[in-house]
């Protein structure tokens, strides 16, 4: 469902962030992308939610070339992709309930759906009791779980998690990984970037290893090896 076709991204004047990447991801896969900082993992993901466009090559989502997306289609695409980041990116002026509700409202969901789904998705990440707290009142692990709840509340086809455990302690890291696996088991394609060996090993699925903007290894049931 996602296909990178000989994609290269150049930022002004410097060496390419990613170079000649060809990568195919099937529906329902759980793909861990590993590599050192600056290997090009984040750039690769940014192209998927149209925050970057390739300098050369094409990215296909479903059967559509993302170069041809209109502004409207980009907005629709983003409603169909959940995103989780190292720095959580919650809305600081909205409480937990509103943060999740906002994603549903943006997708045009009705008030009844929102009232029903928000508590449900919060239970899924085990934070039902924090519904009315503001992000700054929560720990890092709790904030990340809220971010995951927001990412999956619209039942996206794809969940992109860019270093989701980068700011978390081992216990929270473990919990986040378990949640991601659960989401994948429910049928959502998950793309995870990380440089945490323990995370990759505990997922135990496909591992794509990147170095200096290139894919240097692609193992179907991989371990972290760099």
């Amino acid at each position, binding site marked *: 469902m996602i296909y990178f076709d000989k994609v290269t991204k150049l930022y002004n004047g410097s060496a390419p962030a990613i170079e000649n990447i060809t990568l195919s991801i099937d529906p329902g896969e759980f793909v861990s992308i590993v590599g050192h900082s600056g290997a090009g993992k984040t750039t690769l993901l940014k192209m998927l939610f149209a925050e970057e466009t390739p300098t050369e090559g094409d990215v296909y989502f479903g059967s559509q070339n993302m170069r041809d997306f209109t502004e409207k289609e980009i907005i629709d*695409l983003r*409603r169909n992709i959940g995103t989780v980041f190292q720095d959580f990116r*919650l*809305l*600081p002026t909205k409480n937990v309930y509103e943060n999740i509700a*906002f994603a549903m409202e*943006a997708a*045009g969901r*009705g008030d009844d759906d929102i009232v029903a789904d928000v508590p449900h998705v919060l239970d899924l990440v085990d934070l039902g009791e924090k519904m009315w707290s503001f992000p700054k009142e929560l720990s890092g692990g709790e904030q990340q779980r809220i971010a995951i709840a927001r990412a999956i509340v619209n039942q996206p086809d794809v969940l992109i998690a860019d270093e989701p455990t980068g700011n978390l302690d081992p216990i929270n890291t473990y919990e986040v990984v378990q949640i991601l696996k659960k989401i994948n088991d429910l049928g959502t394609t998950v793309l995870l970037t990380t440089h945490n060996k323990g995370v990759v090993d505990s997922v135990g699925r496909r591992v794509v290893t990147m170095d200096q903007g290139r894919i240097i290894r692609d193992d179907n049931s991989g371990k972290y090896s760099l």
Partner: protein
Amino acid sequence: MGAWVDIKRILRYGLVGFFRNGFVSLAAVLILTITLFVIASLMIAGAALSTTLEQLTEKVDVNVYFITDAPEEEVLTMKASLETLPEVASVEYVSREEAIERFRERHKNDQLTLQALDELEDNPLGASLAIRAKETNQYENIAAYLETLQQSSIDGAGSIIDKVNFFQNKTVIDRLTDIIDTSRNLGIAIAVFLGLASVLIAFNTIRLAIYTSRDEIGVMKLVGAGHWYVRGPFVISGVLYGLISAIIVLIILYPISLWMGPASERFFGTFNTFSYYTESFAFIFLVVVAVGILIGALSSYLAVRRYLKQ
């Protein structure tokens, strides 16, 4: 999912955002209040200046004095022809009888003069026309027209003119014209400068307020919010800044104009800030509220647009 639900949500988030970003809202409201206060003060000062200038202009006129045996119908014909001139605002006819009346009235405490007048068998005063121009700088043309009348026809209408007092008053009228022109231009220049400066400051403050939300805007985009869904609440907050500031300004103008009233009346003659404020309240209200909302909404709109594009 109707547009109505979206509008409701945007309105709610705009309102909630206004109160949750309390400090930022306070700063924006304060700056906008100062801006709108400057604009309202400029309006009142402008009105004071133009009424005063108008009154000064009304005090200026050119008088044509006729010889004592000028026939009344010829004077009236000249009055009619003067009234057709585009520069002329009004022409007042003072007959010989009225002239002597006014003279007596003016000198009623001066017995000597009145006695001297009584000694005369005939009324020594001629009829006259008091001509008022629309603009002070048009008196020159009117006087020139009268002069050609006087010279061109010895037997015609011009021959009954005794004298035109424009040339005695010329320097005063010229100077007054200069003062009126200068103060009008200066007034406009100062108003434009102050108005522009305060609008820019308000604009920048709101931009800075939204700058603090730039990450938030990025997140909203990321979860797939449409442009208007991101922008709407900020614009609503901007409208609220404008509306609240406008109401504050209208409230504080009441005691200020009341307090300035007597002083302004002494200074300008008849202009009273308080009576102007109460009489023109609807107009001031409309301008202040409209400008407030416009600055608030437009600056929010433009500020968010920058972060939406990134």
